[in-house]
């Protein structure tokens, strides 16, 4: 058998392997940037890697990728200044 004919059960990393998981969400985290102190703790604990972080020198700027955010609300509970609100999905 030639090597090309071998079919191996190999997976490759893929974003959105389970589809757009944002549709699972029943509540949506919304960052209130006037309160956010840019500590990055929400990024640290997000189980879905859906919080993106950008280093702006003195602090971080975080943003949520709503295509894949499942709305678990961990960012909302760990935020030290309560800068994230959970809003009901409509």
């Amino acid at each position: 058998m030639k090597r090309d004919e071998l079919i191996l059960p190999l997976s490759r990393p893929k974003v959105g392997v389970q589809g757009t998981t944002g549709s699972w969400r029943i509540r949506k985290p919304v960052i209130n940037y006037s309160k956010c102190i840019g500590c990055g703790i929400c990024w640290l604990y997000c189980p879905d890697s859906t919080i993106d972080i950008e280093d702006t020198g003195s602090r971080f700027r975080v943003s949520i990728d709503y295509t894949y955010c499942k709305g678990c609300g961990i960012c909302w509970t760990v935020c030290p200044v309560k800068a994230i609100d959970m809003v009901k999905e409509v």
Partner: protein
Amino acid sequence: MPLTIRDLAKEKYVLPGHAACPGCPETIGLRYVGMALGRKAILVIPAGCTSIIQGLMPGSGLAFPIINVAFASADAVASGVAAAKEVLGEDSVVTVWAGDGATADIGFATLSGAAERNENIIHICVDNEAYMNTGIQRSSLTPIGAWTTTTWKGKTEPKKNMPLIMASHGVPYVATASIAYPMDFIEKLKKAASIRGFKYIHLHAPCPVGWRFDPSETVEMARLAIETGIWVLMEVEGGRTTISPPSRPYADKSRRKPVIEYLKRQGRFRELSDELVRELEREIDEYWKLLLKLSS
């Protein structure tokens, strides 16, 4: 110098849109493995939630090199991979990422074997205290009094003490960690990667589905476990036991929160009797006494 968020790698090893439930502690833990070990990590994953989290072929929700293996074989496979990598002269950290079932029950034979042979691998036990993937059945790491689908009236046997069992194997490094204390976990992983021989890390991971609490409380629940003293962060390195900094204040019994605060927030302990709560409190106390004796 303690680690800060700025020091951590921002590369994504857990990709958005994976198949885990909302609020999953395992993916939080896997992100820290990526931050600590990066491209050097090779994961060996026996059956469990993490097999599901990767999603369906041909895609994978995790960006690590992974070998998915049968339940009982994880540490044997990892031993082989580590040996092959050594022959090839490649610098990699072979890591077994196993649940509590694949560590303490089904996979224990190969785990104990690999520990006895002192294979150059890290075994991480991600302990969500039951077989969550198949629908919340009891494991030997389910705590006493906890409801599961196979212990309707609460488990009657106490939780097996895996960290001390592994320490008794005389391996170079044993540690406990919690998903609520990422810097502690990442530092322990980095330390484990630098040590030659068998390393065991027991990661406490509260599961919102199986423990019956809101997905947003995963991290809070893990933190409460430390604050009530029911889970202790410690290291056993070369036979020397040390309590890790996040757990140190709770060596003093008066600073511990009452264990009921941790229990009452979880639906699985809904039918726990006062008698069992006192029993648990006594057990926590005994365990702390033992640890303090070992670390003195």
